[in-house]
């Protein structure tokens, strides 16, 4: 596998990888496979009908990880990729996906990833996804990830997503169906600046008895950027659902939060919280009394908030 400096840098940004990871991995670069490794318990198979892969994790697989980073360094590349994760019962795995775009040209680069997770009974998954864009070309860097989650009885999935820099436009959609006793935790972090636009949409169906979800979105919108946070949580059984949108707006940015929580069962307990506002003046002042300038104080507050 040969990757150039730009591709290696992107890999580090989106997957914290310095070179080739250990364990199972599939690296996709500029629309083609740049490397793959499978293990005794984790198989990766190229799809026949569409562009994408199947990741098959055997039941009972413990403490293994899968990395599937994507890097796009060629300006103007547009792709849609379908990746399906079949996570066996009783397994406990970490999956790291991420997409880095370097666009040094004037044509738009777009990556749309559709990730579907079929999580078996009693399995635990931690899914980490990072998005990052760079390059001084005028071409837009566009990312539209869709995540579909089906959690079987008593399974648990924690999803951490971050889009901190450089993506001009994103339309992120997460849809989940949760069975008895299963839990989905989502933590999303977004920072937008310039004229970036980010739309993020969650739809969680709590179908199972004692199913639960906690969706937390923290975001910072700077300059002329715009963000929209849409969350829908449907409680169809005795369940607990909690969504939180916590956003800092700066400059001329705009943020909207549109929640829908719907109880279709008397034992469904659903909460939505949304807080949108500028950085609290007293936070800035406290840090300034420690000797920081207003600008330094602002940076500390934002980096802590998005940590």
């Amino acid at each position, binding site marked *: 596998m040969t990757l150039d400096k730009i591709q290696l840098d992107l890999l580090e940004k989106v997957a914290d990888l310095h070179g080739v990871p250990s364990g199972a991995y599939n690296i996709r670069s500029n629309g083609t496979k740049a490397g793959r490794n499978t293990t005794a318990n984790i198989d990766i198979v190229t799809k026949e009908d569409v562009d994408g892969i199947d990741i098959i994790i055997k039941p009972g697989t413990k403490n293994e990880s899968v990395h599937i980073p994507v890097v796009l360094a060629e300006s103007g590349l547009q792709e849609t990729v379908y990746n399906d994760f079949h996570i066996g019962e009783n397994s406990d795995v970490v999956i790291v996906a991420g997409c880095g775009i370097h666009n040094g040209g004037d044509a738009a680069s777009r990556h749309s990833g559709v990730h579907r997770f079929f999580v078996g009974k009693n399995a635990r998954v931690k899914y980490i996804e990072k998005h990052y864009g760079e390059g001084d070309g005028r071409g837009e860097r566009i990312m539209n990830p869709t995540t579909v989650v089906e959690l079987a009885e008593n399974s648990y999935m924690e999803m951490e997503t971050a889009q901190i820099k450089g993506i001009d436009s994103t339309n992120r959609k997460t849809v989940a169906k949760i069975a008895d006793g299963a839990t989905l935790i989502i933590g999303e972090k977004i920072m937008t600046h310039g004229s970036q636009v980010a739309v993020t949409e969650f739809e969680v169906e709590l179908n199972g008895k004692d199913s639960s979800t906690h969706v937390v979105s923290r975001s910072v919108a700077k300059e002329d950027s715009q963000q929209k946070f849409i969350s829908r949580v449907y409680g169809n059984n005795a369940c607990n659902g909690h969504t939180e949108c916590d956003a800092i707006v700066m400059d001329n940015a705009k943020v909207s939060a549109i929640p829908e929580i719907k109880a279709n069962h008397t034992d469904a307990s659903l909460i939505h919280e949304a807080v949108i506002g500028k950085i609290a003046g007293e*936070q800035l002042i*406290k840090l300034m*009394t*420690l*000797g920081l300038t207003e600008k330094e104080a602002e940076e500390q507050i934002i980096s*802590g908030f998005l940590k």
Partner: protein
Amino acid sequence: MLELKNISYSVEDNGVKKDILKDISLTVDERFVVITGPNGSGKSTLAKIIAGIIKPTRGRIILDGEDITDLSVTDKAKAGISFAFQQPVRFKGITVKDLISLAAGKKISFTEACDYLSEVGLCARDYINREVNGSLSGGEMKRIEIAMILARSTKLSLFDEPEAGIDLWSFNSLTRVFENMHQSVKGNIMIISHQERILDIADKIVLLKDGRIRQIGTKEEIMPQILGATGYCPQIKE
């Protein structure tokens, strides 16, 4: 040494001018100067003026002979003023260690953090990585606020009602913190307090009432005034 010269502060409240501080002149050159007085007498306002958070309408602030009246909050902090708020501020995602590091002006080691935190009765192991958010109690926040001032070790430290919410931790420990702090830093410490135990260690007590200095003196001189001042109930001391 801090000198306040004829400090006044007025605000417009619904079109009516309200004098919050009236002609305050005061020198802080002792180890411990305690400002006391009824609620609403202007104590916190005075501390905020010294720290630069609000600008006085009139008067000058002199620190070691230098006029710092017009400096920003940041520059006053850099000139050597620290201020522990009456109501500590909470932050999402910022940890106790982050705040103490920012206060110290450098990355601090676990041992250093432990020195500051144990001084205020907190175990570093339990607290260093905690976020300074709503999960901490008021009393924990007050102690972290004090630990930050210790980490700064500046020539003037202001504490606004440091005893509030510190229930489990004894007042003896709190006065010892101030004494140790003076030993190591050698600066001047100004404490806004109603606590008799804190008045006990004062070299000088300033009694504020209705925005004016009512009296400056020792505890023996001030106590009768305090008990006589409206808003004070001798039964509600602790």
